[in-house]
C-alpha cells in the first residue's frame, strides 16, 4: 500500500530533522522517567508506554501548529509530549494533583490541554475518531485551515467508530488525518488474529480516501506522508488515512507479561529501535554533534525532572472538586 507520493517527495530539512529528534527524545525521556516513578511506587495508575513509537507523533507534531488539534488515546502521552504540551501540568495530572492540567480529575488516560491543541484523550478504543471529525467540521465553519489528527491503534481499526468516522470525514471532506499507530498488537492479540486485511491503509479505498502504509519508525517516510496529508487537509481536499507501522517495546500496559509474543520478534524490534538509529543518522550526516545531542538530552531531562518535582510538591484536589466541572455551574453541596 505504500504508494510513492511522486517525484517531489517532501523531505525534512536539517532543522526539521533536529526538531523531530528533539520531540522523539522528549517523549522517550519522559516515558523513561514515568516508568522509573512507577517502579518506585510513586505513581499508581495504569500506564501504557509508547516506547518505540516516538517517530510517529514527533514527525506529525513538527508539522502542526498550536492551533491544530489532536484527539488521542490512553497510549497518547507521547502524542502530547510531541505536541509540546508543557510537562508540569502533565505530570501533576498523572500524579493526581490539583495543579494537573485536569485538576487531577482525569488522570493519564484523559489528559487535555487545549492551549497546545490536546483536545481529547480517550480510554475507549476507537473513540478519538468521531470526535476529531467535530473539530474538522468546526475548521470548515471557521474558514480556517486548521487540521485535526485522530490518533488510534491497529486494533481500533476493527471497531465501528473507525468506519463511521472515515466515511463521514470523506463525505464531508473534513480536514482530519487518521493516524493509525500499527504496533502489531491489540492488547494481547496479534494483528492478523483480529484484523482481516493485510494493510489497514487498504481500508481507505472503502472511503474513497487516500491511504498509505508508512514506515512509522522512519522519520523520512513519516515526514513525506504526513506532510502530504496535512497539505491536502489544509487545501480543503479532505482526509487521509496513514497506517504507521511500529512496535510497542513495553507491551500493552506497564507490567505486561509479554507471553503472547515471541522473544525473537521483540528482540528484533528493540534492536531496530528508531531512537538511537535516528540519533546516529543525525551525527553521521553531520547535522549534529555528540555534544549537541548530549546537551539536548540534558535539557530535556532537566525539564522532565522539574516537572516531576513540581508535581510531587502539588496538593491533592479537594473533595469539593467532585461537585465542580460536572456542569458549568457548580453543584450545590
Amino acid at each position, binding site marked *: 500500500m505504500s504508494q510513492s507520493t511522486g517525484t517531489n517527495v517532501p523531505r525534512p530539512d536539517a532543522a526539521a530533522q533536529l526538531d523531530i529528534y528533539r520531540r522523539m527524545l522528549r517523549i522517550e525521556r519522559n516515558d523513561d522517567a514515568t516508568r522509573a516513578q512507577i517502579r518506585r511506587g510513586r505513581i499508581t495508575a495504569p500506564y501504557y508506554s509508547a516506547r518505540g513509537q516516538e517517530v510517529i507523533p514527533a514527525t506529525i507534531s513538527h508539522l502542526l501548529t498550536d492551533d491544530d*488539534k489532536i*484527539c488521542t488515546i490512553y497510549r497518547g502521552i507521547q502524542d502530547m509530549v510531541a505536541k509540546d504540551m508543557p510537562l508540569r501540568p502533565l505530570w501533576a495530572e498523572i500524579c493526581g494533583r490539583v495543579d*494537573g*492540567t*485536569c*485538576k*487531577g*480529575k*482525569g488522570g493519564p488516560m*484523559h489528559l*487535555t*490541554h*487545549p492551549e497546545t491543541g490536546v*483536545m*481529547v484523550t*480517550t*480510554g*475507549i478504543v476507537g*473513540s478519538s*475518531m*468521531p*470526535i*476529531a*471529525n*467535530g*473539530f*474538522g*467540521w*468546526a*475548521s*470548515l*465553519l*471557521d474558514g480556517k485551515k486548521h487540521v*485535526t489528527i485522530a490518533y488510534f491503534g491497529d486494533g481500533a481499526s476493527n471497531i*465501528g*467508530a473507525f*468506519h*463511521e*468516522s472515515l*466515511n*463521514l470525514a470523506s*463525505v*464531508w471532506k473534513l480536514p482530519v488525518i487518521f493516524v493509525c499507530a500499527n504496533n502489531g498488537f491489540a492488547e494481547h492479540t496479534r494483528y492478523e488474529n483480529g484484523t482481516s486485511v493485510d494493510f489497514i491503509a487498504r481500508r481507505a479505498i472503502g472511503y474513497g480516501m487516500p491511504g498509505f502504509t508508512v514506515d512509522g519508525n522512519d522519520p523520512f517516510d513519516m515526514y513525506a506522508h504526513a506532510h502530504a496529508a496535512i497539505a491536502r487537509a489544509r487545501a480543503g481536499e479532505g482526509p487521509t488515512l496513514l497506517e504507521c507501522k511500529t512496535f510497542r517495546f513495553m507491551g500493552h500496559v506497564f507490567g505486561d507479561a509479554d507471553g503472547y509474543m515471541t522473544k525473537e520478534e521483540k528482540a528484533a524490534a528493540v534492536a531496530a529501535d528508531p531512537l538511537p538509529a535516528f540519533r546516529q543518522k543525525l551525527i553521521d550526516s553531520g547535522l549534529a554533534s555528540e555534544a549537541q545531542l548530549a546537551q539536548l538530552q540534558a535539557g530535556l531531562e532537566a525539564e522532565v525532572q522539574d516537572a516531576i518535582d513540581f508535581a510531587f510538591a502539588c496538593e491533592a484536589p479537594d473533595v469539593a472538586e467532585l461537585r*465542580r*466541572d*460536572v*456542569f*458549568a455551574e457548580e453543584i450545590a453541596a
Partner: protein
Amino acid sequence: MSTQTMETAGMVKMTGQQAVSAALFQAMAEDSRVLVFGEDVADREGGGVMGTTKGLSAKFGDLRVRSTPIAEQSIMGAAIGAAMAGYKPVAEIMLMNFITVAMDMVVNHAAKLRFMSGGQSQVPIVIRTLTGAGWQTAGQHSDHFEGWFAHTAGIKVVAPSAPADYKGLLLSAIQDPDPVLFIENSRTLFVPGEVAADQGPIPLGKAKVVQDGRDVTLVTYSGMVQTCVAAAAELAKEGISAEVVDLRTLSPWDKDAVLASAEKTGRAVVVTEALRHFGPGAEIAATIQEELFGRLKAPVRRLGAPYCAVPFAKALEDAYLVQPADVMAAVKGIMR
C-alpha cells in the same frame, strides 16, 4: 410546517413540532454558532423525515444544517468535537432507540469531558430525539430510555409535552453550556396548543403545575402528562381533586415543586411511560417518601410500562401504555 396563525392576544396556536421548528429558526438566527444536523435534516432530504427541520438549510446554509450518513456514533462524535471547538450543535437522533448505537459518545464522552478535563472542555450539545408508543411501531421504535441518561452525571434530560414548553425549553437547552437530551414525544408533538408569539426560553429544571388539586399529586412528564390530565378530569367528576405536576425537565428534577405539592395533598402517584421496573419514577417516589416520611396519608404509587418490550398488536400496545383508567385506579386505591 407553516404556522397556523390564530393569534389571540399575542398567542399563536401551533403544534409541538411547529414549536420545535420555531425554536430552531430562532436559535439559529440569534446565534451563528448554532448548528443543526442529523439524518435527512437538510432540505435536499426533505427537511427531516417528519419535516421538523424544513427550511433551516435553505435559510442558514448547508454548512450549518447538514444531513448525515446513518451513523449515530459519528453524529454524536461530530457534535461533541464541534461543541468543544465553540459551536452549539443540535444533533438529531431520529428515534430514541437509535441512541443505543451511540451510548459511548454520549455517556463516556459528552457527559464526562468537562469533568475529566477539570473544566477545560465544554460540550454544549443538544440531542433532539423522538419516541413514544401508540403508533404500532413495536419493540425497537418506541422505547423510553430517559432513565439511563438521568442516571448519567453530566447530561440534562428535558421532556416537554406542551407546545409552549417545546419551544421555550428547546431555546434554553440550546443556550445551556452543557449537554442536554431533548425528548420529543410522538403522541404530543402533533397536538396544537397556545404559544406566546414571542415565547422565549423557559428555564430548565422547573416543573409546572398544569392542574391544581387538593387530594393527590400526579407527578409526570412527556407523553404521560395528557394521560394524567385526562385522569384528573375524570377523577374530578368523582369528587377527587388531583394536582398534576409536569416535571418538564427530568434531570435535574424540580424536587421543591414536587415535595411542596405532595406535602400539600399528602398523596402522590408517579407516572412514566418508561418501564416501571428500576425506572425514573423510582427516584421521585423514593425521594418523596424519604423527605415526607410520616407526613403522607398513603404510600406513593408508581405507574409505568410493564416489564416487556413494546408490543405490536394494538390491543397489547394499549395495555402496555399507562391509560387514564390506570391512573384513576391507582389514585382510588390510596384515597381511603
